[in-house]
């Protein structure tokens, strides 16, 4: 291949890079939105269930059977309200993390307008890597949600909050460990790749 052909190939690679990064950015935003929706819905449902079950048990032992239906309705509505508020808060907090990707979007816009350099390509690659790590970090929240779910489930099924607590902590620690391990592995792999390319140049 002549140096001119090599140059064309490099220019094409840089242009392809921008196109791929643009697709990646769209996928990233979509995935963040979907994950946030699911997580907010799960957290809302967990809180709804916990509040309703707690209030239901309290009513069962403290209210006369003739009055319990109206109180149960109030307990249900209170639980629904708690679930909705929790879901909304979780949604807003997690969506704010999407602003971490703003730098990537801005760089992509700039690169689409002008000539692309390999330095821009490196910057783009770093931002994509950071965005991917942010997405991985969100799995720590998911680990917490799994822990809470395990606590509630085991507490109610086993009628023992102690067992529930142990199950919740174990579940949380396991998923947290897995999320952190994957996060660190990914980061290390990336840093090693950067060192290798310097050595190989």
């Amino acid at each position, binding site marked *: 291949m002549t140096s001119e052909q090599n140059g064309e190939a490099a220019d094409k690679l840089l242009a*392809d890079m921008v196109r791929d990064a643009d697709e990646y950015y769209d996928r990233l935003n979509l995935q963040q939105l979907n994950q946030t929706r699911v997580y907010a819905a799960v957290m809302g449902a967990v809180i709804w269930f916990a509040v309703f079950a707690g209030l239901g048990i309290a009513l069962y032992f403290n209210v006369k059977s003739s009055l319990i239906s109206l109180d149960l309705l109030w307990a249900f509505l209170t639980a629904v309200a708690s679930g909705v508020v929790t879901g909304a808060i979780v949604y807003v907090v997690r969506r704010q993390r999407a602003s971490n990707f703003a730098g990537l979007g801005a760089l992509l816009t700039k690169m689409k307008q002008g000539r692309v350099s390999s330095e821009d*390509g*490196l910057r783009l690659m770093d931002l994509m890597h950071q965005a991917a790590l942010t997405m991985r970090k969100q799995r720590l929240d998911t680990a917490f949600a799994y822990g809470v779910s395990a606590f509630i489930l085991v507490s109610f099924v086993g009628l023992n909050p102690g067992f529930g607590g142990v199950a919740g902590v174990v579940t949380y620690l396991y998923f947290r460990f897995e999320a952190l391990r994957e996060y660190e592995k990914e980061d290390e792999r990336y840093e090693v*790749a950067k060192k290798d390319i310097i050595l190989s140049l």
Partner: protein
Amino acid sequence: MKTLERPDLYVLARFLDILYENGQPMKKTNLQMRTGLNYVRFSEYFDWMISHGFLQKKVEDDVELYSLSPQGLDSYHRLVAWIRETMKGMRI
């Protein structure tokens, strides 16, 4: 002068970009201005690139001009290909 042990990839890419885009041999001073580095930092990277055979010198009317050597050009292409490959391998 201090020698570079581990150069910054961004700065290397900037050198390669400038020399590649310029196409023609250029003065050391022009290169320094376009990299935006101070003289000490620039010299470290410049010497590193010379020692790795990335640059070739040409003298015209007693003026030293520098451009990418075939090895420097090859490194530029390899860097671009590496960025592209690394990006392709990135998962969300």
